[in-house]
């Protein structure tokens, strides 16, 4: 029997005569649903995806023809792994290495599949696929039960905040569609997930499904083979789970990406609404500064809006001229986000270079990048057993709990309540590698006399009126001198250093000092505050530079 029959040669078909306008109207009602899958050789993942793509007519003939006669399945069948594994190394080795994204649509929804590998050494790719998913399909081989690979995938997806886990018990045809086998796997899986400590796991909804991807049982259509199963087919389930994309009932969160200022009369703040909704006239607060104003206009290319909601990209103008820049978080007055410098987070380590408290990391969170002052590992999780082991470091693909302190405060939410303002990545400042993916769990209250010694960073900031920072300034000697003098006169602890001694500069900044790494130049002007570049006008003044230091959160309000 040919399971995936080879298609006939392409023929010129007439343009269908159905009402295209009707089709387009229906298309306007479609939303977008993202789900992830994970798996490897033999567990049927590629076959399952192939089924979904093929049975929804989302694969073209030339794509099918290009893999016909290749691969390892029987004569006349199509090895769908060849269709989904896009890299030569993957086809050669017969494994999925990296995340691939695939697309298909039904009359109800457009789907994006993040197709990820299942092996432990690709845990980071699995986490990547899960980070934006509304649901995850976890494959379980009916003959083998819940193996470590299924556990790992379930744990990672719940850690990454995926709200719906679809447990597809596959190869049911090989266990004679046994209800007993199916129930046993469901129970085993349920009890495993209850043990997880993934922060948001209590909010996970589990769906169990008996399928045979190879024979198409319960994949697109419900099957008579499993009369004891009264639920929907996989595709029906995917069409009916609510999309978390429209996170509109949560508090309003809007990270400013860019200040749009085409002329003197217009100053707007461009960004994408992470959650919630905003209306013209709403009282808003910018964080971390705490400055408030009201929304004057919600501007888009297609006309102003009276109200906007997640995840629209809009531009807001405010009634008052307050100092807001990229990285600030706009919230409604009555539902502000907490502002903190220290927090605990779950982290998935992604770099070959293990987490090292001595290395310099940058934390990218919403639209801002701030230096990490300190990072400490509390424990590592064994994903197979869910046991916590004390650890000082995390190797690539390791998952653990860390405590992060940033050099400057950021406005954030726990990841369990907001997948945008609760997420961050750690970037290795030397190699620029994306080293870790973090999910904020809770803010750590100020705790004097800890690892930092008898004086805390916050105490220094309160006394000196500024945080530590490396300020690289390329400018004329006159301007550099004036900046140093002005900062000193206002009580700042400022030290002029050589720009090439990065280790020294970082140590000074960590201790709360302003390390002014100056490069004298009559020709060029450039300001870098902790790696963030700001181009200066040729006519830049001391006041311009102090303004940027305030804007970056280095100089505290009211001091200089």
């Amino acid at each position, binding site marked *: 029997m040919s399971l995936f029959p080879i298609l006939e040669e392409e023929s010129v078909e007439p343009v269908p005569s159905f009402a295209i306008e009707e089709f387009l109207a229906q298309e306007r009602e479609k939303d977008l649903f993202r789900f992830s899958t994970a798996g490897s050789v033999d567990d049927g993942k590629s076959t399952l995806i192939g089924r979904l793509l093929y049975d929804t007519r989302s694969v073209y003939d030339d794509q099918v023809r290009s893999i016909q006669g290749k691969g390892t399945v029987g004569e006349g069948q199509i090895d769908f792994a060849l269709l989904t594994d896009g890299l030569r190394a993957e086809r050669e080795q017969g494994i999925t290495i990296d995340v691939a994204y695939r*697309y298909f649509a039904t009359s109800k929804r457009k789907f994006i599949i993040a197709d990820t590998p299942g092996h432990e050494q690709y845990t980071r790719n699995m986490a990547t696929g899960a980070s934006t998913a509304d649901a995850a399909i976890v494959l379980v081989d009916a003959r083998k039960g819940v193996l470590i690979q299924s556990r790992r995938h379930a744990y990672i997806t719940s850690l990454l905040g995926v709200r719906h886990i679809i447990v597809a018990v596959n190869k049911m045809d090989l266990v004679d569609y046994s209800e007993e086998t199916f129930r046993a796997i469901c129970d085993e899986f349920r009890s495993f997930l209850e043990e997880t400590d993934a922060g948001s796991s209590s909010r996970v909804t589990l769906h169990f499904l008996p399928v045979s991807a190879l024979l198409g049982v319960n994949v697109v259509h419900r099957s008579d083979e499993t009369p004891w199963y009264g639920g929907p087919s996989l595709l029906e389930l995917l069409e009916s789970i609510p999309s978390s994309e429209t996170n509109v009932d949560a508090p309003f969160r809007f990270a400013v990406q*860019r200040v749009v200022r085409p002329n003197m009369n217009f100053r707007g703040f461009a960004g994408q609404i992470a959650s919630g909704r905003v209306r013209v006239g709403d009282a808003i607060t910018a964080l971390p500064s705490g400055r408030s104003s009201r929304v004057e206009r919600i501007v888009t290319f297609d006309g102003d809006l009276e109200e906007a909601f997640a995840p*629209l*990209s809009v531009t807001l103008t405010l009634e008052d001229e307050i100092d807001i820049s990229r990285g600030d978080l706009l919230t409604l007055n009555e539902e502000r986000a907490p502002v903190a410098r220290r927090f605990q987070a779950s982290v998935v380590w992604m770099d070959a270079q293990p987490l090292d408290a001595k290395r310099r990391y940058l934390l990218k969170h919403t639209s801002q990048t701030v230096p990490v002052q300190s990072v400490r590992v509390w424990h590592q999780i064994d994903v197979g057993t869910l046991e916590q082991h004390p650890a000082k470091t995390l190797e690539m693909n390791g998952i653990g709990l860390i405590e992060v302190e940033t050099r400057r405060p950021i406005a954030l939410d726990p990841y369990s309540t907001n997948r945008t303002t609760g997420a961050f990545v750690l970037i290795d400042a030397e190699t620029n590698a994306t080293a870790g993916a973090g999910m904020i769990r809770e803010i750590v209250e100020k705790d004097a006399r800890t690892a930092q010694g008898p004086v805390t960073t916050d105490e220094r900031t309160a006394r000196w009126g500024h945080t530590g920072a490396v300020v690289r300034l390329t400018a004329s000697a006159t301007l550099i001198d004036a900046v140093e003098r002005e900062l000193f006169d206002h009580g700042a602890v400022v030290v002029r250093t050589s720009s090439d001694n990065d280790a020294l500069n970082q140590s000074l900044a960590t201790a709360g000092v302003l390390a002014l790494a100056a490069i004298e130049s009559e020709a060029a002007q450039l300001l870098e505050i902790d790696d963030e570049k700001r181009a200066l006008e040729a006519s830049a003044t001391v006041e311009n530079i102090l303004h940027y230091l305030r804007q970056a959160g280095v100089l505290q309000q009211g001091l200089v």
Partner: protein
Amino acid sequence: MLAVENTVPSQPTSTVTPARLSHLKLLEAESIHILREVASEFAKPVMLYSIGKDSSVMLRLAQKAFFPGPIPFPLLHIDTGFKFREMIQFRDEMAKSIGAELHVWRNEPAIAAGTNPIALDTKRCCGLLKTQALLDGLKHYGFDAAFGGARRDEEKARAKERIYSFRDSAGQWDPKNQRPELWNLYNSRIHPGESIRVFPLSNWTEMDVWQYIHEENIPIVDLYYAKERPMYVRGETLLPTEQDFMAWPGEKPQMVKSRLRSLGCSPCTGAIRSEADTLPKIIAELLSFRSSERANRVIDHDQEGSMEIKKREGYF
């Protein structure tokens, strides 16, 4: 219309908006977010403008992202010298009408040496006129980020692409060593000489692109619409008559009602027989297709994995 002039407050268009967005609006919001991130984090970004339907959508999204301001980066067209006349005319008019700065880069030494897909093979021709020209052009202007209109649904190597695709100092892609990309947090940090290719349309499909063009009334090159055009007819293949050297000795073109499904260089882009002379008809026709849009591009099929090889070498 020059977007920059349009800063007068317009009247709110609606008072109650349903809190549900169509897939096109969701894709639009995601793409605008990407465009703004790049414009804010890179010193010298550029948008690769190929004049095709995907570029047209990307350009409209850029207008939306920075409205009411102008697009804060230039456009760059890599001109192989074999683009259709209608494309070049459309390109110049489009850049002028939206007030965008346009750079055109050509590998002049290779063009002067008579490089064409008949004299060389298509692979080497592409390597010189597209990939090399692109790398030279980016280097010449010192661009550190370049937007491209490529989509993940086009080809299986592209399905593995990041939205921010890191390129080493030679502009090359290392598919086995890509930066993990989670949520909508993009790592824009590069060392001097390195660069990032950015694909804001990564999650769009061909159908999404056409529907968006329809919904938004985005102008596209006339070659996408079916009309009677002279073609060299070789079995099922329709070859545009743009370049004389493509004709076999004594071969005469015939008038065929046809259109192009994707726009490339005229010698290597086949036309299809079609009656679709409006956008709804194009969309209806798309629904009936059994072949992918790149099936009529000679260059993708030279060998298994040829797109991956080209991308490693620096192609988009």
